């Protein structure tokens, strides 16, 4: 394990062991691809419609290491996400893959994938956007207004649609 990678890890985050070096680039990329496939099926615990890949919190995958970054510093889902990744990797036979958390560069909503944004809108949460108004996830109207700067979680604000009168959450730009 490299010095630079090690510097940000804590005891909580390194569960795996690494007993060999898989040096062949072919084997590495095959393993990496399969690990990516495993991660694609790990949902965000608070927004189960999104995978952790949609959310953009997986920073890199190496044959022996998955690097993730937290969304908000106080997000209670951070530990739950680590536990779900661990369980998914273990179940797929990757007990020797460590999970490492890095803070830098810090997560931004720009990393939510286009698929993730579409899933959010379909789920009833307006995706993050610098636009002044949100598109109502219920009726599609752009005639919407902010009710409160925070919604049910730190990452969302509470909005209301003037056309259909339904309230909805909007992902904050972060």
């Amino acid at each position: 394990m490299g010095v630079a990678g090690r510097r940000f890890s804590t005891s909580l985050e390194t569960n795996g062991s690494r007993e060999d070096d898989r040096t062949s680039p072919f084997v590495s990329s095959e393993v990496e691809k399969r690990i990516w496939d495993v991660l694609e099926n790990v949902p965000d615990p608070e927004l189960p419609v999104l995978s952790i890949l949609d959310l953009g919190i997986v920073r890199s995958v190496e044959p022996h290491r998955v690097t993730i970054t937290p969304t908000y510093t106080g997000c209670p889902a951070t530990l739950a996400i680590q536990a779900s990744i661990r369980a998914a990797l273990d179940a797929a036979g990757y007990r020797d893959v460590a999970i490492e958390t890095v803070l830098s560069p810090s997560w931004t909503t720009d990393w939510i994938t286009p698929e993730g944004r579409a899933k959010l809108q379909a789920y009833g949460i307006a995706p993050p956007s610098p636009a002044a108004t949100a598109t109502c996830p219920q009726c599609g109207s752009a005639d919407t207004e902010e009710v409160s700067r925070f919604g049910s979680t730190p990452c969302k604000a509470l909005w209301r649609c003037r056309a259909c009168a339904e309230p909805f959450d909007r992902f904050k730009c972060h």
Partner: protein
Amino acid sequence: MPSLPTIQPEDVATAERASHAGNFDAPALDQHRDAIADYALRLGDDALILGQRLTEWCGHAPQLEIDLSLANLGLDLIGQATLLLGLAGELEGQGRDADALAFHRDVLAFRNCLMVEQPNGDFARTIARQFLFSTYQAALYEALQHSAAPRLAEIAAKAVKEVRYHADLAADWVIRLGDGSEESRQRMIDGLDWHWRFVDELFQMDAVEQALVDAAIGVDKAALRPGFDDVVGRVLTNATLPLPVYPRAVVGGRKGHHSEHLGHLLAVMQFLPRAYPDATW
């Protein structure tokens, strides 16, 4: 043939303190290790104590939306405290993690500023504290992102995005209450008056912080004051509120000289982990 220099006791001590991976890429920081630990403790205690204060509003705020806002602000701050106290504990090297520092220190060992430990009072007083503190904290983290200590810099870069939002939210409320009814306006004035005497302490420097400024690790807080005064002045003008005037600042939190309020806060916060040390969530 030249002889090799003798190994000095301090070289041995330095080598022993290096992390398992060997922080040999950052030898310049090593001499500031204790000061950075102290610095992280101050920043972490500020975030922890204010976070705990805000959670007292949970279920008591005037509206559901405000309840959610204050709880989410508290959550962000406690997240920042976890990172900062974790760093402080690691650098201190006595085996204390963030939880040990939060729950197993007594009041005199806390290094937070006095403003964050003040009782919530009414909603306007809570908003006054949040506005003053978040405005200061946002400027501090903004500058700390460029610290020569990478761990501090990355925590600041992450936290600043959260804190800018806190400062905006609080400023919105200062304007809304100040420019609102006669009653909300008077309460906002009283809230700002209560907290004004604790503003100077936010920007106070001491030898520890000055040494870190000289090493490009810490932030020169005194230099942040004009920007802070500018923001506060603009928001209060917008809110049609007068600038509070207080003759004398109250200081001492960074040395552990706290008001009586902090002990009461800790009694609530620390009771469970102290009474049931092995309790797990």
